């Protein structure tokens, strides 16, 4: 296994050369409901790749297929040089999986959980003890080795989960919503572990997330919406594609106001879930003019550099969190 540290740029370049994971035309449906539509992507060795999308966008289905839990229905996936459907026995020993719901047994100790995992992967005896001790040391949980998992905090359980998934030294690590249920501090810490893992061991990391800040830290992201992969690229590039700034206006009569604005300023705004959005270079200058002209009809105006949330809205015409409560920490300043 190559242990050379890989810079984000090198990783992106590698995506074109030596893909670790490649999907073409992947589709999946549960009865009538199509969960994935013709999804295609390619992920290079040493890359940190995130699938970003709201809940119900198809991420979890994709994760289940990639982790070999569910056989794909149509399309091809090659992982670590093997066909995912027919050669999963060759892939599994080299694949690490971190589930959204803990796959730890709460009635067992940290060390026992790791030992059972090792045995399933054919690791036993002294090799198991050494690796397990080293992994616990690395994750900073050595002191809790003989505590029952159910007595650990959420953050420590996550670390145990990661220690378990890494025990057999996988080349590719899959994580489903890794930071769900973690407070911001623990979330940052967890992401630092992932970055370190890539730097030190050259592990390829593929995760699903609905947190913008987590997606920001990936080398590349794939934006998912209603089972489709609507965009793929480095976060900075996706944001740059919008251009300039994003002006968001809340108004009582948004449709009517949008028409007036379009007419008056020659804009091409859109109304998304009752708010007017205008993507425009030098958007802050527009704000002054808009408030001047239509001040009484406006409830609030905000302007900012495009975020990944703006990218999502731009691509899909839908608010990212329209279906869920919008966390305060993720609103624009």
């Amino acid at each position, binding site marked *: 296994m190559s242990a050379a540290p890989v810079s984000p740029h090198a990783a992106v370049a590698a995506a074109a050369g030596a893909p670790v994971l490649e999907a073409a035309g992947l589709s999946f449906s549960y009865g009538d409901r199509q969960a994935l539509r013709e999804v295609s992507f390619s992920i290079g060795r040493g890359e940190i790749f995130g699938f970003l999308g709201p809940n119900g966008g198809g991420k979890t289905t994709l994760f289940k297929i990639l982790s070999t839990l569910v056989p794909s229905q149509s399309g091809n996936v090659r992982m670590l040089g093997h066909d995912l459907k027919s050669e999963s026995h060759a892939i599994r020993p080299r694949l690490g999986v971190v589930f959204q719901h803990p*796959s730890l047994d709460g009635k067992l100790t940290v060390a026992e959980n790791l030992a059972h995992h090792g045995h399933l992967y*054919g690791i036993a005896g002294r090799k198991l003890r050494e690796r397990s001790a080293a992994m616990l040391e690395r994750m900073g949980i050595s002191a809790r080795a003989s505590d029952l998992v159910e007595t650990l905090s959420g953050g420590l359980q996550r670390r145990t989960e990661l220690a378990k998934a890494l025990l057999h030294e996988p080349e590719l690590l899959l994580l489903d919503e890794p930071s769900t249920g973690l407070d911001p501090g623990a979330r940052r810490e967890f992401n630092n572990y992932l970055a370190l893992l890539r730097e030190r061991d050259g592990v390829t990391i593929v995760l699903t997330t609905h947190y913008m800040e987590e997606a920001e830290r990936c080398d590349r992201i794939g934006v998912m919406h209603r089972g489709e992969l609507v965009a793929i690229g480095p976060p900075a590039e996706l944001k740059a594609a919008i251009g300039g700034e994003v002006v968001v206006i809340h108004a009582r009569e948004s449709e009517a106001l949008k028409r007036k604005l379009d007419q008056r300023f020659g804009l091409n705004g859109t109304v998304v879930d009752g708010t007017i959005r205008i993507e425009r270079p030098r958007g802050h200058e527009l704000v002054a003019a808009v408030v001047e002209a239509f001040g009484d009809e406006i409830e609030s105006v905000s302007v900012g550099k495009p975020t990944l949330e703006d990218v999502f809205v731009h691509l899909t015409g839908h608010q990212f969190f329209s279906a869920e409560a919008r966390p305060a920490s993720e609103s624009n300043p």
Partner: protein
Amino acid sequence: MNGALLQIATLWWREVTRFRRQRSRVIGAFLQPLVFWLLLGGGLSASFRPPGAPAGTNYVEYFYPGVIVLVLLFTAIFATISTVEDRKQGFLQGVLVAPITRPTIVMGQALGGTTLALIQGVIFLILAPLAGIHLTLGAVAATILIMALVAFALTSIGLVIAWRIDSTQGFHAIMNLILIPIWLLSGAFFPASGAPAWLRWTMRLNPLSYGMAALRRSLYLGATTAASSSPGFMMPLAITVAFSAATFILAASVAKRAAAT
């Protein structure tokens, strides 16, 4: 092959460890049948006169092997019930993506459940003198063998259900509709001899009846007061072995086909 043995051993040992750490489960699976035995055995003793039974066979004694099977049934069910939740958001998720085949997983689970049931069954065996049964050493050995086979079959049936359904509520419904009737109609609760013909036939077709018969027989092994109404030992034993093998194969194939969603 060596790898598969290690995998089976680790899954088996996990079940045993969990069991040791859940006292209430241990006590529940033991106490409930004990109460059944004492209340039903005591209450029905006066009115119970099995046709063809030697004089002096009381219901406490008749019901005793039936309660042993009930202990095995309850423990086997508790051992498999965790499979349902384990698969969706627990330990089993990690097992399902590990380099292990589904039949190997099922073997580990089945042996785990069998061991737990057997521990409970052996504890219950200590109460034999209360039923008026005096066990010889040979009887103890034979009874443990039969208990292991029956427990393995019952755990496998539990696993067939657990791998097929998605919620534990579903499991309780199926338990009441299938598992309890299988037990009731195995000769555990009443003998076939006095029952109407259709019931007698149902009991004859019930594979558990033979495990029950083998158990009755093994308890009296070497004793002169053998319950004469029981059939021979070898035929029920052979059917019980076949029953265990068949239920395991069924569980393994159900697990193989089960989607992990």
